[in-house]
């Protein structure tokens, strides 16, 4: 039997949702018929609106999809102005204030506390400035990700930006691909660093060389000069629900101009063969499990493309460093060379959240020192591009960069956190503010070995894994436990994950550490690492030498002077930082103006 969600989607979905959304916005939240709320909230996701959790009735998270994380000159200012004007609600965050923007792990932007009545005005402003929320959530093509500095990066094999732009044009608002069985996440990377994180997406294009038009295959020696640069294709990655998968190699190479055909073919294959009866089994990763990569390739060839597919070309995976746990350029923070002789400067945004004032100031700085363009990375950070050499020193001296540093402490730099109980219905624990407190405490109290300047800690509030915990040095995931008999928030601890040539999911070695003992546990772990590591050994390589029990023994939870004010069940509050935080004190649904 099709699910409720499938029934609702078959009635109204895609572009046509917009008219009704605007009618409801005009007539007020209460105009959504009582018995259609579930259906409409599900559909609104397609337009980037996700109803916030229980206790926050009538408020929405709004996701703006910025393809490849590219914000053209002026667009960051638009985001800052919208955040400042509309992303304010009854809850004020003690660290980030009353209005802020979240830069996400898929190079998008999230705003909170959005009221339905403001949506038409926000859409108008976004669209006037070339931005959109279309398909930012819901069962369709999501924001396309990649190396954010595509087209500029000195390390580039091929410029993926024109390909990404074309995919975005083709598949946003495309009725044939609007209603898929589940979300469809695509990554296109043209650089040799792996920063598009293709391995954890439903569909990944990664750079590869191939000798085409006769001759021997691309892997023969000496043929390099005739090789064409294109993309190898992988399918079926994703991290959610205790079922993490890396995308599987389907042995296909495509030239850049055929990427839309192959991407569209695979999206149509997913549309037609994906599971619509069981949403838990719907992601394409499960179809790849069931069929195997060969059958995916055969079906694509026979039913969805009208040209002969090439076999995979020679990839550059051995050069991947992004989030790989070792080597240079584990992230894009700091000053890097552009192809044109200018620089891009990656700035650390702790847990991806930036106050609206700071967003506006950053937009000013990007205009003053660069071209006005800003880009977003999958580590929740921002990159200011096009900074000429002679403007660099002055830019780096700007006071704003004290907070958003190009050379942060490893614990600040490595922190990624999802939305958590502040707004998310699925969450088991508080995340962003907690991770900020963790990072500050670790910075003040823990020393990494001198040669280790990166240490990635990712915190997700539940198994949906929005913070991509399984691909970090230390993975933290929301749980509960009892401490002195009382229920408290806790975290499972995983170790040794990362991407790179041979990606590896973290192993969950220690379960349910009460949150106030987590910083102590990390301090003890780092101490053991410093003492026991081989000369120059990375944390990931260190972890790989031990079995799970040995690692569990190295974690050693311990109370320290770290204090955690959010230890009780933050989900029982309407907003964990409100003075009167009880559910009964929840604000009323926003009135219509």
């Amino acid at each position, binding site marked *: 039997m099709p699910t*409720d969600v499938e029934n609702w989607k078959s009635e109204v979905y895609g572009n046509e949702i917009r008219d009704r959304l605007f009618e409801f916005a005009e007539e007020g939240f209460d105009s959504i018929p009582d018995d259609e709320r579930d259906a409409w909230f599900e559909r609104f996701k397609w337009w980037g609106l996700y109803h916030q959790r229980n206790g926050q009735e009538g408020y929405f998270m709004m996701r703006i999809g910025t393809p490849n994380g590219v914000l053209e000159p002026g667009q960051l200012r638009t985001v800052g102005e919208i955040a400042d004007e509309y992303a304010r609600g009854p809850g004020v965050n003690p660290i980030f204030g009353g209005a802020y923007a979240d830069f996400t792990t898929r190079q998008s932007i999230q705003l909170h506390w959005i009221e339905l009545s403001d949506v038409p005005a926000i859409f108008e402003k976004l669209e006037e400035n070339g931005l959109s929320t279309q398909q930012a959530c819901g069962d369709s093509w999501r924001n396309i990700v990649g190396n954010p500095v595509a087209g500029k990066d000195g390390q580039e094999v091929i410029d993926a930006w024109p390909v990404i732009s074309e995919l975005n044009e083709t598949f946003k608002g495309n009725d044939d691909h609007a209603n898929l069985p589940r979300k469809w996440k695509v990554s296109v990377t043209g650089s040799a660093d792996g920063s598009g994180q293709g391995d954890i997406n439903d569909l990944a294009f990664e750079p590869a060389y191939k000798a085409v038009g006769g001759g021997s295959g691309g892997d023969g020696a000496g043929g390099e000069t005739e090789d064409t640069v294109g993309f190898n294709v992988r399918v079926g990655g994703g991290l959610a629900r205790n079922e993490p998968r890396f995308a599987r190699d389907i042995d296909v190479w495509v030239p850049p101009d055929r990427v839309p055909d192959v991407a569209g073919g695979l999206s149509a294959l997913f549309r037609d063969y994906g599971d619509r009866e069981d949403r838990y089994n719907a992601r394409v990763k499960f179809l790849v499990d069931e069929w195997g990569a060969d059958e995916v390739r055969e079906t694509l060839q026979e039913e969805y493309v009208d040209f002969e597919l090439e076999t995979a070309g020679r990839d550059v995976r051995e050069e991947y460093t992004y989030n790989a746990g070792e080597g240079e350029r584990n992230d894009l923070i700091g000053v890097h060379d552009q192809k044109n002789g200018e620089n891009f400067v990656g700035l650390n945004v702790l847990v991806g959240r930036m106050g609206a004032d700071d967003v506006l100031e950053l937009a000013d700085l990007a205009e003053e020192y660069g071209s006005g363009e800003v880009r977003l990375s999958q580590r929740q950070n921002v990159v200011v591009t096009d900074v000429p050499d002679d403007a660099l020193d002055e830019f780096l001296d700007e006071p704003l960069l004290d907070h958003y540093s190009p050379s942060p402490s490893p614990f600040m730099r490595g922190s990624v956190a999802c939305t958590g109980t502040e707004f998310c219905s699925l969450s088991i624990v508080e995340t962003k503010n907690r991770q900020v407190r963790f990072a500050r405490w670790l910075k003040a109290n823990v020393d990494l070995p001198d040669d280790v300047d990166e240490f990635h800690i990712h915190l997700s509030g539940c198994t949906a894994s929005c913070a991509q915990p399984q691909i970090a040095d230390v993975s933290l995931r929301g749980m*509960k436990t009892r401490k002195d008999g009382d229920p408290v928030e806790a975290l499972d601890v995983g170790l040794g994950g990362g991407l790179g040539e041979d990606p590896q999911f973290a192993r969950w070695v220690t379960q349910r550490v009460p949150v106030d003992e987590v910083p102590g546990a990390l301090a003890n772990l780092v101490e053991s690492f410093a003492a026991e590591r081989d000369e120059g050994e990375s944390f990931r390589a260190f972890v790989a030498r031990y079995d799970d029990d040995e690692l569990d023994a190295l974690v050693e939870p311990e109370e320290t002077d770290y204090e955690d004010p959010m230890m009780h069940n933050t989900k029982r509050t309407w907003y964990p930082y409100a003075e009167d935080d009880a559910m009964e004190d929840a604000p009323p649904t926003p009135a219509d103006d």
Partner: protein
Amino acid sequence: MTTRLRVLDDGAWISVNDGREVRVSELWRLDAPELCECALTDLVVENFQSVGVDGSTVEVRAYGQCIACGATGTTGWIPVGRVRGGEFTELDRSAVRRVRR
């Protein structure tokens, strides 16, 4: 009167007549020998799998983990509340819950 019962947002909550009524992240005490060997399972509810109604009693099957022993699994049908005249009342969350069928 029919009651609309749904598991929404990937198992994050139970909707009763288009209102959010039961949510994940609670700790439930369960008499559930099929889940683990603890005298009482101390279950963190991570996900709702399905919802149904038996007479006026709303029941769910939930995925979660016993925080006492670490066992994970999906429960049988556990009562979570009652619907009368279209109104849902949640059962006392601190009470021990038992599989009903």
